[in-house]
């Protein structure tokens, strides 16, 4: 009990002190594991068993509880596979023969569904890989798949390698997710810790660097800034609320951890507990100078209505200490949970704060769902809404739209909408947070706002009115089909007053039209002449943006050409190169070429 109480006190202190003085990495790992090994409540599941085994505590209870859980019947598909895989590897002689036998038997009697997304498959195959490795030379009759250990291993190995190849050449499909970041880090942590094949072990270690680098470059004090392949109704407005924030704290000591810690952070910690190298830690925290970071990702598998299985995603993120602005090109790149653009401003304590601004067309259609899902047309919306409740709501703030086009240059965003008549929800929603310090509608048509130390100017192309949002804030509602917004952010340090900011914005040349398609010509606060018309290539100072040359990663910290299978990480005169062709990491000085 004393130990439990001490842990509780430590946990409270850890949370309270998190932003100012995070404990060292090893201590953060310990806190995460102990939170599960010694849970406050009575609900002790697989996670607690795994955490206790890691701590080599209560092995008799672990055995008993494992048998109880397995006797209840496994459930959860790949979300069952990964915890019991960890238990199998953390056992190390602690479990009773009966418990071990029950665990082995479950992999014969329970067939997990492999699922239908990238994260499902990665969890499924990483777990299957490790269990086939653990129980080699066993016949098909002993596995749910009916395949021998060797067959299971080969299949899992092939898919994992193909996923790494695809990710390092064309990008992730479920990219930059506030929640699902954890389910990509977790299997790589497992393989880095427990794969016996040196190449797989190395591949997974490199992927940990790769995924963590991707996140490090696009976080603001631990918050994963948008756009995202997937987020959810809460996290799209309360940007801190995702598993990624737990990893921001765990990996870098940034921001605030979740309470309780995410299970994904636990299982990451139970396996490799990989501490990012110093260069990634510096990149995660360095917001001294503004920078633009570009990424190319890919769409989820498009089963219908497209000639190519994957389409490109062109992502732009501008970050500075006060805020971040991030966007994709618009369109439906992922079903249901896509988040295409936003401004996220920094706040001292983001918990419960809606520190973001964005606009969306609330799109809902069988076309979208049949593009990405294999279900039939009549029940698919009903099935999706059962777990993604706002999908078919006109009020929603989540999701992409085929009628949205976005162009970003530094901290300027132009979002245009051309919604065909007859579209299910023929309007545009704008999210105006409860946590904006001010919102002023100017006679010029601009709306001025302030969030944290960020000024925001938003110029709707069409009239609008306001609707309240449950949970706080207001929704800009504009029921015009040809629509759009010009949005400019700026740091409060550059404009000491609202009036100064307004004067600067109002002095900028701006031309708007909505027919035949929405179009904008605008000189940004950064002095660039921006031109963008719906479905046309955007131009900066008269030069068309070259999407063909868009890199897999491009910016001051991360660089990789498309199809390269490499990632160059740079910071502070140092360079770390991940080469997936040779499975090597090279570290070298850059003679001042990187910031």
């Amino acid at each position, binding site marked *: 009990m004393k130990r439990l109480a001490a842990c509780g006190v430590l946990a409270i202190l850890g949370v309270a002190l998190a932003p100012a003085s995070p404990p060292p990495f090893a201590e953060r790992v310990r806190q995460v594991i102990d939170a599960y090994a010694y849970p406050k409540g009575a609900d002790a599941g697989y996670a607690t068993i795994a955490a206790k085994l890691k701590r080599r505590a209560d092995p008799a209870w672990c055995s008993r509880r494992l048998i109880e859980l397995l006797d209840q019947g496994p459930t959860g598909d790949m979300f069952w596979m990964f915890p019991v895989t960890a238990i199998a590897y953390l056992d190390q002689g602690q479990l009773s023969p009966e418990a071990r036998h029950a665990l082995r038997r479950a992999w014969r009697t329970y*067939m997990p569904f492999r699922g239908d997304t990238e994260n499902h498959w990665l969890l499924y195959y990483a777990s299957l890989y490790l269990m086939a490795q653990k129980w080699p030379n066993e016949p098909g009759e002993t596995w749910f798949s009916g395949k021998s250990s060797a067959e299971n291993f080969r299949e899992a190995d*092939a898919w994992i390698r193909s996923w790494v190849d695809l990710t390092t050449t064309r990008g992730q499909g479920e990219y930059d997710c506030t929640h699902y970041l954890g389910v990509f880090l977790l299997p790589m942590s497992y393989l880095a810790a427990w794969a016996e094949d040196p190449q797989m072990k190395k591949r997974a270690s490199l992927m940990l660097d790769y995924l963590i680098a991707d996140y490090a470059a696009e976080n603001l004090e631990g918050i994963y800034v948008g756009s995202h392949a997937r987020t959810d109704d809460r996290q799209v407005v309360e940007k801190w609320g995702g598993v990624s924030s737990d990893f921001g704290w765990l990996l870098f000591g940034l921001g605030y951890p979740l309470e309780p810690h995410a299970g994904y952070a636990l299982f990451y910690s139970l396996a490799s507990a990989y501490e990012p190298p110093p260069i990634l830690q510096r990149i995660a925290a360095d917001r001294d100078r503004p920078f633009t970071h570009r990424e190319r990702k890919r769409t989820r598998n498009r089963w219908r209505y497209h000639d190519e299985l994957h389409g490109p995603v062109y992502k732009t993120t501008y970050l500075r200490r006060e805020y971040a602005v991030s966007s994709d090109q618009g369109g439906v790149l992922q079903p249901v949970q896509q988040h295409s653009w936003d401004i996220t401003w920094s706040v001292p304590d983001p918990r419960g704060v809606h520190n973001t601004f964005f606009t969306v067309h609330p799109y809902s259609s069988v076309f979208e769902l049949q593009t990405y899902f294999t279900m*039939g047309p009549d029940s698919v919306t009903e099935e999706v809404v059962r777990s993604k409740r706002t999908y078919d709501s006109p009020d929603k703030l989540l999701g992409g739209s085929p009628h949205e086009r976005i162009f970003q240059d530094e901290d300027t965003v132009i979002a245009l909408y051309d919604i065909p008549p007859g579209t299910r929800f023929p309007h545009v929603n704008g999210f105006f947070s409860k946590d904006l310090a001010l919102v002023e509608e100017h006679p010029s048509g601009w709306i001025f706002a302030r969030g944290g130390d960020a000024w925001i100017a938003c110029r709707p192309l069409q009239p609008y009115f306001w609707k309240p949002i449950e949970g706080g804030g207001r929704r800009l509602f504009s029921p015009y089909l040809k629509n759009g917004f010009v949005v400019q952010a700026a740091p409060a340090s550059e404009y000491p007053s609202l009036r100064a900011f307004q004067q600067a914005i109002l002095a900028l040349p701006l031309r708007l039209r909505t027919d035949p398609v929405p179009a904008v010509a605008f000189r940004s606060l950064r002095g660039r002449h921006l031109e963008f018309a719906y479905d046309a290539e955007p131009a900066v100072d008269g030069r068309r943006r070259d999407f063909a040359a868009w890199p897999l990663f491009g910016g001051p910290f991360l660089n990789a050409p498309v199809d390269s299978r490499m990632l160059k990480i740079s910071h502070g005169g140092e360079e770390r190169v991940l080469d997936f062709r040779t499975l090597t990491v090279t570290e070298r000085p850059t003679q001042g070429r990187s910031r």
Partner: protein
Amino acid sequence: MADWIRVLWVALAASAPLPAQFLLTACMVNSRAYVVGARLPASGLSVRDAAGIWRHTGFNHPLVTALDYDPRQPDTLYLAAGNGCIRAANRGRDWRILTGEEVTELRDVAVDRLTPGTLYIAHPAGIRVSRDGGASWQDASRGIPRKFTMSVALDRTRAGHLVVGTETGLFFSADGGASWTPAGAAGFQVMRIQQSPHDPKLWLAATQLGGLFRSTDGGASWENLGAIGAGRNLYDVAFDPTAPERIAVGGWSVGVAVSADGGKTWTARNAGLPRPDVWSLAFDPARPGRLYAGVHEEALFVSDDAGLSWRKEGLEGTVIYRLTFIPAGGGR
């Protein structure tokens, strides 16, 4: 090779019903509370035993969309499933996944009656064929522009002849899937293809929004029947093995419609069904006029008068993707 099923059906139609010769199987899911990762009520394959009791068979699985079998070994079923093509031996009890990481979320499976060891699967990225009983697979969708495939059907009288239903219509192959020609229903997602048990030249295809299509030349060309289902989604079509002119279609907001004149005219047969949303249909080959319908998340319903009246027949709360009669005797 003899036309095994046709001979059997003709014999059945001419003689007293022999219900024990067939078992009804259902590819089904208890979908109401399920998303990936959640607890799954009994789902996958259910077989109705000789006593009329439904028994969930094999593993619990949320996506078994179709099954087929080789008449030479009817004890072994082949399932189109979320995890791949599954060989379910021992009448569905012992499963082995035959495919690997190259396919997912299968929509259909067809066993070649004329070429032992050959089976085809329809999946979201095309068609694959195995010529060694599922030990190895090759892509068989070269030349098809958009790959999403919901249905595959083999001609039981002509080796290597098959029709697939894709996102953009029907495609016909006379060389075992090595090459394809567009055959009809252009622009429509095809949901289900069936060959008549009475006339091997006669085929029907149900589509999303396009209605019902018919081929009278063994699947090489198709025409729209026009009279049923246009603007709606038809999920299944069934020939009555005991009545050459009787056909049924099932669909969303269509329910069950039955034609007694080979598709010239149709009559809605929904009196007694709780909702007009039907996924699957099957005529009982051993009981003339008996028709089964899987109604969306309600139950399986059965009619003994070709749809004039219905009663519940189990599998409450399920979506039934496919109803298939399999020989009861088996090979054991």
